[in-house]
């Protein structure tokens, strides 16, 4: 049984200008110890998917269809109290911006202890010892001393490490990482990804990595889902996806990465047009307006996510052929 199973997840936001269809029929599975990526641009629905899994959508949004089950247990019907017990304990999450995700008026150690105290019955002294162990585990030097410091005394990379320590404090079985390296320097990015990989291996956690950075995906994840306009448009093992991208959007994304040693005068390949605002029930493929391979049918019928090879599925009427 998969650790996390999301099936046909559909999320709507009520706004003053009508409903926004943020997520439309998204499905994905994560096994224990597996790393799964969700890739997409801003507004493609990837963060909303993560929040829906945790039941943290807020008042304006609601899940209108679909199933989310964690460890065989459905999450959507749970009460707030039951979900709260799960969050930070069995399922945990780290955010994009380590600068603002830590409470500025609490010491780092206290923030790690707080999670331990909320979810375990460790005493104060034991929680303190454990919090220092955790900070040490995520690679914060001199953890015992730095535990008593405040977030502003940490560098960006150190704060992200501290965030990770908070998130893994209760040994979660599933970790959701929403753009964990976006706000960091490239060298620090690599260190944080290394750390995440090591933690996944050591603890056998499942990792749902949300990102827009295909470079991060390439060396971290086994499976990659490409999201566009609130739908998963392509899913494949990462190796397969990079080798034989089928959806024109995936192809365009991969083409937009500048090659090392490429022609410096060449213009960066971009995707024309704007991502759609998902105000109405979508008619046809959401990418149709920007797609170089658009057919008449793309404007009227929504393409289903159909398998084209083992573990490789694409939602496109006219996928890019590969020999």
């Amino acid at each position, binding site marked *: 049984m998969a650790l996390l199973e999301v099936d046909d997840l559909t999320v709507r936001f009520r706004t003053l200008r009508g409903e926004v269809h943020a997520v439309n029929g998204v499905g994905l599975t994560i096994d224990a110890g597996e790393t799964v990526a969700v890739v997409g641009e801003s507004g493609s629905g990837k963060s909303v998917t993560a929040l829906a899994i945790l039941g943290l959508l807020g008042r304006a949004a609601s899940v209108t269809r679909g199933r989310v089950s964690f460890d065989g247990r459905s999450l959507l019907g749970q009460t707030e109290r039951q979900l709260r017990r799960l969050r930070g304990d069995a399922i*945990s999450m780290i955010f994009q911006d380590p600068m603002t995700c830590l409470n500025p008026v609490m010491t780092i150690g206290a923030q790690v202890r707080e999670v331990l105290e909320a979810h375990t019955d460790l005493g104060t002294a034991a929680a303190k010892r454990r919090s220092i162990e955790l900070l040490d585990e995520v690679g914060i030097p001199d953890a015992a001393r730095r535990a008593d410091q405040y977030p502003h005394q940490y560098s960006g990379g150190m704060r992200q490490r501290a965030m990770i320590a*908070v998130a893994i404090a209760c040994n979660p079985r599933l970790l959701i990482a929403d753009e964990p390296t976006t706000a960091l320097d490239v060298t620090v990015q690599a260190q944080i990804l290394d750390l995440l990989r090591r933690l996944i291996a050591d603890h056998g956690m499942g990792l749902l990595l949300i990102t827009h950075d295909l470079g991060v995906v390439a060396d971290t994840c086994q499976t990659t889902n490409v999201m566009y306009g609130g739908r998963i448009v392509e899913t494949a093992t990462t190796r397969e996806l990079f080798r034989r991208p089928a959806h024109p959007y995936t192809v365009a994304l991969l083409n937009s990465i500048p090659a090392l040693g490429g022609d410096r005068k060449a213009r960066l390949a971009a995707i024309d047009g704007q991502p759609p605002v998902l105000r109405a029930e979508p008619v046809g493929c959401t990418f149709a307006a920007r797609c170089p391979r658009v057919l008449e049918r793309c404007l009227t019928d929504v393409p289903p996510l159909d398998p084209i090879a083992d573990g490789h599925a694409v939602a496109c009427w006219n996928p890019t052929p590969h020999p």
Partner: protein
Amino acid sequence: MGLVVLVAIAAPLLAPETPSGRAYLDRLGGRCCAGPSADHWLGLDELGRDVFSRIVYGARVSLVVAVVSVTLALVAGALIGAVAGYFGGAIDSALMRLVDVMLAFPSFLFAIGLVALLGTGLWQLMVAIGISNVPIFARLLRGSMLGVRTSPYVASARVLGLPPRRVLAVHMLPNAISPLIVAATLALATAIIETAGLGFLGLGSNDPAQPEWGAMLANTTRFLQTAPHLAFFPGAAIVITVLGFNLFGDGLREAIDPRLT
């Protein structure tokens, strides 16, 4: 400001005489009123009492009333603001409309109304000034709570499954409270003016053992032509104290608010 606080604390040591003298009428020698002299630095009032002593003791009344009433306003206002800012929605609207109604009256008028309701006396005075200052704090904390509520560390506290009470008390309040601390020092100044104002109108304490700057001013209006110094010194005491608190508030804001540096 520090000086005023010190004076208030050390009043019994500083003041040459108790403020409620009775048998001093003979000192006047039938004339009102003696100006400043070596014996009585700020002169004698119409009943022959030492003005300096009364001002020194008056600092106590003003400060106690100001501190107690502002504390009251701060606690009640913060409670309303925190609840409104945390829950939002209908609770927020209901509380804020209530606050709007209170804000519709000028706070001094509101305080007068409350004194009329509660009667005169030191406690009534503090409650009246306190309640009339509640809306300022409620508004302020609600605003900064709304700002903090959407901040990533609050989102992350929720994601980590912390109970709502803890999110509110540990993650939101401490981050939202600093504008209130500055507003409180500024409100102290306002409270002193209101205390003096109510005292001037005879709505403060009528106990002669608790000299009050506003009441002292009111008493002197009858002697303004013959003994203007009687009006000058209590007035100066009010001005200096209020100015001190305002400067302190501004300084505190500059120290706390990183955007102003």
